[in-house]
């Protein structure tokens, strides 16, 4: 062994002194390159190996902890969901959970995740029980510490945890992230604020100067579906917002909560310069079945852009008041295919009367305008 070592070191010194130094620069670089590539490749192999081994180890550990936590939680949740529980009962659950190695970050995180899951899926007594357990074990400290992290994804997680368990006093801290350049963080901050704020859950809409992208809207809607105790303001307040996406979102919310009082403000948006906003406004008339405004829409029709025109036709179909059937009939002769198509669909939505009209039209229309009528009369296509 020693011999080999001597031989190798001798060989390498000799190689380095007598040959390597005399090489051209490029060959030297190549040698270095080979060395680096070789090292990196071997490191990759080691990385894969140890990662896999480690994963298997961590995986089995987490499974074990998870099973234990689930045992403790499901047991107590079932026990207390019908009977009244005392403070001692909460303490007992907390004691049971404390038996786990809670000094470990990962264990605390699993407990938080499991509690969050139960909190999201069950309402009533269980819901309150879970928040009390969260506070009693002091997991809010865990979340608060995460909020201070410099990594955005840790911060975002913290916001989710704190808001899910309703830690109200922390809500103002979320506001500073509402306009974060990192859109995921800003989304978490928005939905966090919505859940956690007691006084003015929608105030973040005043601050939002970025595009409220669809994914954020879906998220916020989901929270509103789930949490029935959030106070709902009149959304017409934001119809004048400079942020078009906020306006659109508020129109949607207005429809969702059926705020008929806001309709008079909605009308004002008819001259909004943004097409998407106008489209959303038109759709809102249909979704809220505002029969009185049908005429209003048909008057606007001629000056509108194509997407808004189509939206108007759809809306008339949705309202189906029978008053605008002639308007729709005339559109069946429109040169634009999409308008003809939507008009036929809208007539079809008028129930039996609409169907009658379409059958009548079949005989009078020219061949090229007949296709849309046939299409909407086909029951398999409308299904």
């Amino acid at each position, binding site marked *: 062994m020693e011999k080999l070592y001597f031989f190798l070191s001798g060989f390498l010194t000799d190689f380095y002194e007598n040959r390597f130094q005399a*090489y*051209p620069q*490029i*060959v030297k670089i*190549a*040698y270095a*390159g*080979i060395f680096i*590539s*070789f090292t*990196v*490749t071997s490191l*990759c*192999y080691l*990385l*894969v*190996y140890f*990662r*896999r081994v480690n994963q298997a180890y961590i995986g089995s550990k987490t499974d074990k902890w998870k099973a234990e936590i689930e045992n403790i939680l499901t047991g107590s949740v079932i026990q207390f969901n019908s009977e009244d529980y005392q403070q001692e009962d909460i303490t007992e659950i907390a004691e049971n959970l404390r038996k786990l190695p809670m000094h470990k970050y990962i264990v605390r995180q699993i407990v938080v995740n499991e509690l969050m899951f139960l909190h999201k899926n069950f309402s009533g007594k269980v819901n309150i029980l879970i928040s009390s357990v969260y506070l009693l074990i002091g997991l809010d400290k865990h979340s608060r510490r995460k909020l201070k992290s410099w990594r*955005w*994804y840790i911060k*975002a*997680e913290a916001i*989710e945890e704190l808001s899910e368990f309703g830690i109200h006093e922390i809500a103002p801290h979320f506001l500073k992230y509402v306009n974060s350049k990192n*859109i*995921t963080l800003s*989304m*978490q901050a928005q939905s966090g604020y919505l859940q956690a704020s007691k006084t003015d859950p929608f105030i973040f809409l005043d601050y939002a100067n*970025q*595009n409220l*992208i*669809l*994914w*954020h*809207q*879906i*998220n916020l*809607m*989901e929270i509103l579906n789930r949490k029935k105790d959030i106070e709902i303001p009149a959304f017409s307040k934001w119809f004048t917002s400079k942020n078009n996406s906020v306006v659109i979102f508020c129109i*949607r919310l207005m429809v969702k909560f059926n705020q008929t009082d806001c309709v008079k403000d909605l009308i004002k948006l008819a001259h909004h310069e943004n097409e998407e906003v106008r489209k959303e406004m038109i759709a809102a008339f249909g979704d809220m079945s505002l029969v009185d405004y049908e005429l209003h829409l048909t008057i606007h029709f001629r000056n509108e852009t194509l997407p808004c025109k189509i939206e108007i036709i759809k809306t008339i179909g949705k309202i189906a008041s029978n008053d605008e059937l002639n308007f729709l009939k005339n559109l069946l002769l429109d040169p634009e*295919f999409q308008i003809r*198509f939507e008009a036929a669909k809208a007539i079809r939505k008028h129930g039996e009367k609409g169907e009658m009209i379409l059958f009548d039209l079949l005989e009078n229309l020219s061949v090229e305008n007949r*296709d*849309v009528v*046939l*299409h909407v*009369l*086909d029951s*398999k*296509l409308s*299904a």
Partner: protein
Amino acid sequence: MENLINSVILHYNHFIFIFAASIMLWYLVISLISIREIMLYKRKNSFIDFKKLLNSPYTPPISIIAPAFNEGKTIISNVHSLLSLQYPVFEVIIVNDGSSDSTLLKLIKEFKLQLVDFAYHTHIKTGPIRGIYKSANPAYGKLIVLDKENRKNKADALNTGINIASHPYYVCCDVDCIIDNKALLKLIKPIIDEEKQVIASGAVIRIANGCEVDQGFLVNVKAPKNFLTRIQEVEYLRSFLLGRMAWSRINGLIIVSGGIGIFEKKIAVAVGGYDTNSFGEDMEMTVRMRKHMNNLGIKYMVKYIPESLCWTEVPPNLSIFIKQRVRWTKGLVQTLLDHKKMWFNSKYGRMGCLSFPYWILYEWLAPIIEFFGILTYIYLIANSLIDFEFSIVLLVFVFSYAVMITTISIIWEEYTNQVYKTKKEIFQLMLTIFLEPFFYHPIIILAALKGNLDLLFNRQHKWGDMGRMEIDAELPAQAQTVKSNPKTNLGAQKMSPAA
């Protein structure tokens, strides 16, 4: 005379040297960029509960367009698996491209299809259609089958599908691909969570050879056993996880593979649909959609997600494989030449100044440069104009570097999808990398050369009459379940061993 030749060769030698160095540097840069993009995607994703998407009425509806040509053997299970994808609102449009087998009959029987009075409107000009079918059973309400005349052309089939699609986004895929159950949810995600408008997005395509498939569902993912397919797996991984992800980060992607990709229908219609004269319609389409957006001056993005959502069968033997690669090369060169005006054109931003130069130099010309490099090398050795030891050292360097880069791409796979459950499979894959430069790379070079030559000499003859079908038609004799898909026009990332 000999002096002249020697001086040319010497200069060429220098050129190749710089060229190779630039490729190597480029690969280092993209592996770093791509890991950033991958990590960002992963972190962002941990905050996404796809169930919320499933439950929301605001999730944009999607049309799936899947052209089928003589797929009688697998069509039924594949359509069932497409119909069972998780998504709130979507439709499945199967375009039967005039199959000569029982494809249509099987569909009609299985799904109780009936002809409907569909108001077919040619938003995009296409060949004639023969009929549109829907199921009498409301459980299959999502399915529309369109029967058209065979044009031996995938682009035409896709265009017909776009014409009857009723939703704002469409996903194009091949009916014989196995699509992940959550694919639509994951594909729509970049579209709804970016500040800028995302006009198209794609996902990682993996190799289905060797996987256990039951009724159109992927039961067990396994590494391909056959050497050629395994090496293709390595190549796909490198191309998608390094190349595509880095380009996605730079926002310079000019290709979304036809295997699986989501596109905004409005823009696809505005640019006139897929080019029926193209060998690589997927790349050509992406380029034109981008061009359109640039001309309009709207800020937009083309994204890729590092998630394996589509499993496809790749050629298991050499002759089909070469045909596939020849076609890819043709598609690539054609697309590049068709858009000469965009080359180095600052009006087209990163696409003109970064993507096009890259594709021209490193994807199109690299095999040619490399080929002549090897010839020079042989000439130099024959005339003993070269220091043998030094050249070997340089070759070893390039080899080890290539191995390193590819190994890194497998590491990225370890960090993202980790589809292989056992350590053994992943190590087998990693060992394959060492053989790639010797056995696989030369074939790719030759196929690329052949593609260039074909295009140079057969331009007039073959124009317009080609398509994936020409490859498919030969398949039954070769392998029964395997279809080669000239969809991933990825023009294989090449490492040039010429030094």
